[in-house]
């Protein structure tokens, strides 16, 4: 019997990868523990190790093949002494990679409806499709080139090239003085980062995820955010705390939380949560340049998605300005981060049913662009907030309050929150799916506010 070797999932969020290199050829004997191939994921290049003994009889996916879905059969091994019988194996070849169904594809971002209204992008600008993680890296690299006070510190940011590859290549360009690997010691290095900012540097502190930043939240809130005020404006703390935030995929309750509402409640902090590559780049550059402490919330599930980034020498976006992602007249969806993709998907469904929604991407959670929300509400008179996070004391709650206090006369229906279920995020695939927001729930809420 032939043993099928399948494209392995090498990280919780991996859906496909590149078969970077075959280290064994057809006909080679394979021992358990042999490295058969190198597989490149969106996070790292991993070695694929044999667990069976036999002879590599067939390579089914060529070296260099990209976007090979997890689970695709990439090779066959014949067990020892089974060669005679294995003729039948050849009759049932594994399907070619192209035909293999990708397992559980994540919600692919629909093509962005470009309604970019940022003043910084002149008409006629060309765009380059860029992964969000690379846009973030480019932003950091550009600012590091421009200002020697800027440096990066965090766990695995240097030699490992970033746990999520966001700092890939920075060590090579800027050296270990400016790309600093820290021990696993969030409270300590967040404090050292804040102190370095007070001492005149401009640190970018990466948290491997914001879940771990809870160990460091004292320095973010008490040291970074409040010192300027307490010192009567003497003590600045120009620092960027950044990293992935929100639910990833099947990593359970302790690794899946949206801290946007937590940090957005703190005066003295700037809180940014971009969605696409252009915003990630433009807002990261603005965050690094700011003289204020910034919490920059990224999303692991979005890192690998590609979106257009304008080909500008210096693409910097304004902090505190929301963006109209899509214009519409019947209802408004206010959202941010990964919610933007879901809102766009919901908008397509709704359009098919004759409902034309406007989508507002908040981009900055503090200071919140209230006016953008109120302007859209005045236009559509109906509003839904889509937030990948808990409903209680959320950004969604805040938007509801703003609509009540300042937009009451424009409301034709109650404002609805579409948030995650109010439970710790479960591990089981079905329960996780039940707990998280998705486009159908947004569609349903929009229909309710439209009374259809």
């Amino acid at each position: 019997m032939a043993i099928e070797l399948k494209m392995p999932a090498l990280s919780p969020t991996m859906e496909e990868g590149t078969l970077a290199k075959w280290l064994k050829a057809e006909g080679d004997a394979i021992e358990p523990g042999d490295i058969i191939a190198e597989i490149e994921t969106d996070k790292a290049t991993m070695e694929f190790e044999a667990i069976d003994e036999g002879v590599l009889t067939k390579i089914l996916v060529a070296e260099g093949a990209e976007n090979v879905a997890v689970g695709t059969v990439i090779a066959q091994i014949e067990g020892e002494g089974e060669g005679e019988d294995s003729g039948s194996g050849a009759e049932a070849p594994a399907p070619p990679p192209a035909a293999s169904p990708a397992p559980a594809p994540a919600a692919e971002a629909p093509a962005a409806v470009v309604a970019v209204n940022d003043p910084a992008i002149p008409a006629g600008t060309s765009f380059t499709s860029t992964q969000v993680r690379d846009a973030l890296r480019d932003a950091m690299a550009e600012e590091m080139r421009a200002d020697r006070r800027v440096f990066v510190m965090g766990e695995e940011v240097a030699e490992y090239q970033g746990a999520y590859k966001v700092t890939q290549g920075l060590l090579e360009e800027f050296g270990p003085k400016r790309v600093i690997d820290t021990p696993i010691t969030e409270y300590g290095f967040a404090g050292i980062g804040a102190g370095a900012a007070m001492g005149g540097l401009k640190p970018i502190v990466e948290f491997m995820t914001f879940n771990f930043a809870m160990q460091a939240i004292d320095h973010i809130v008490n040291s970074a955010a409040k010192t300027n005020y307490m010192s009567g404006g003497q003590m600045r703390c120009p620092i960027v705390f950044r990293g992935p935030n929100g639910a990833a995929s099947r990593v359970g309750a302790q690794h899946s939380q949206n801290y946007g509402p937590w940090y957005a409640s703190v005066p003295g902090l700037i809180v940014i949560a971009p969605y696409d590559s252009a915003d990630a780049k433009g807002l990261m550059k603005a965050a690094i340049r700011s003289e204020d402490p910034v919490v920059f919330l990224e999303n692991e599930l979005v890192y690998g998605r590609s979106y257009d980034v304008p080909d500008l020498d210096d693409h910097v976006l304004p902090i505190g300005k929301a963006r109209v992602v899509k214009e519409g007249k019947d209802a408004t969806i206010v959202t941010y981060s990964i919610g933007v993709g879901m809102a766009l998907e919901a908008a397509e469904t709704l359009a098919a049913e004759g409902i034309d929604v406007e989508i507002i991407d908040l981009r900055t959670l503090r200071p919140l662009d209230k006016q953008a929300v109120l302007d859209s509400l005045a236009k559509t008179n109906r509003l839904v907030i889509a937030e990948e996070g808990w409903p209680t004391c959320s950004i969604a709650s805040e938007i509801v309050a703003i609509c009540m206090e300042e937009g009451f006369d424009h409301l034709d229906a109650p404002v609805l929150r579409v948030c995650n279920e109010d439970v710790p995020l479960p591990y089981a695939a079905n329960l996780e799916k039940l707990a998280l927001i998705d486009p159908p729930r947004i569609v349903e809420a929009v229909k309710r506010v439209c009374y259809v």
Partner: protein
Amino acid sequence: MAKKPAARKAPAKSRAASKVSETGSSIEDPDFILHSLQEEFEAAKSFVANDEQMLEFYRQMLLIRRFEEKAGQLYGLGLIGGFCHLYIGQEAVAIGLQSALDNDRDSVITGYRDHGHMLAYGIDPKVIMAELTGREAGISGGKGGSMHMFSTEHKFYGGHGIVGAQVALGGGLALAHQYNEDGGLCLAYFGDGAANQGQVYETFNMAALWKLPIVFVVEDNQYAMGTASSRSSAETRFHRRGTAFRIPGMEVDGMNVLEVRAAAEVAFKHVREGNGPVLMELNTYRYRGHSMSDPAKYRTRDEVQEQRDNHDPIERMKSVLIEAGHDEADLKAIDKGIRKIVTEAADFSENSPEPQPAELYTDILVEKY
């Protein structure tokens, strides 16, 4: 040295570490670095100060003493609110250490018991007292209060209210010195209570790993609020707590300004030469309560009186000055001058207006968005 409430400290001479170095060189003794600074300090324990320096130490310590006594009075009158932690008894620590700094490049950071460290810089007592009373003229515009005072002009970075936070922040200031190659060091103070915070050790690890120019100073005033250090700490000889990170420790009598200064010279030189951090334990004693609302049920009056009678840093300095030929009258005149300065500071702080209501909304963010 301040006598500890419990007789727990062996005399420094009997330590095994000293014996090793008597017989062996640093090559034979892998732990040489951990005790060599203490030995260097003990070889010349008292700073040889000239007359002018001695008078300045005396004057500065007395200024802190009289300032804090006045602050205590103003608190009693309701002019100072909230938390107010007095430095009385600990004056020799700030003066002995900070007199050895290079103020053009070195930085200082401390916790909430920060009045003395600011006065040691020569910062105008008026603006400090006005901060305590929450007035517009205060050094933080009245928005910080006793625990949150800063002077970036003097490279004094606070004044932090969260116990132990200043240690990690100090590590960051040291990182900035190293990054900018400015030759400066950071002096980071914390108490025996803060010494049990986890982030202190996270910082020790990184400071030693990266050879940051930082001097960690444990001001061991024997009590973390009302808990005696022997009741809160498994290892009360705090200078040993850097050993796990290969940080050399020094144990110093924090009630003797000349010894503190001598120790500072040894520690600062080591750090400035690029050898990484030093951990100094300054044994001292706080005469007053932890804060103004401390009932002091955890120690006896006799214990406090014994410290005042036999170990007072200012009285000690006074004896040295008298031995050196100064007469009582001259020293009284100094005291009188300082009382005047403090009275003026108090008057200033009472008469300065409260901050304008509009100040409520300033300094939250630096930029406009």
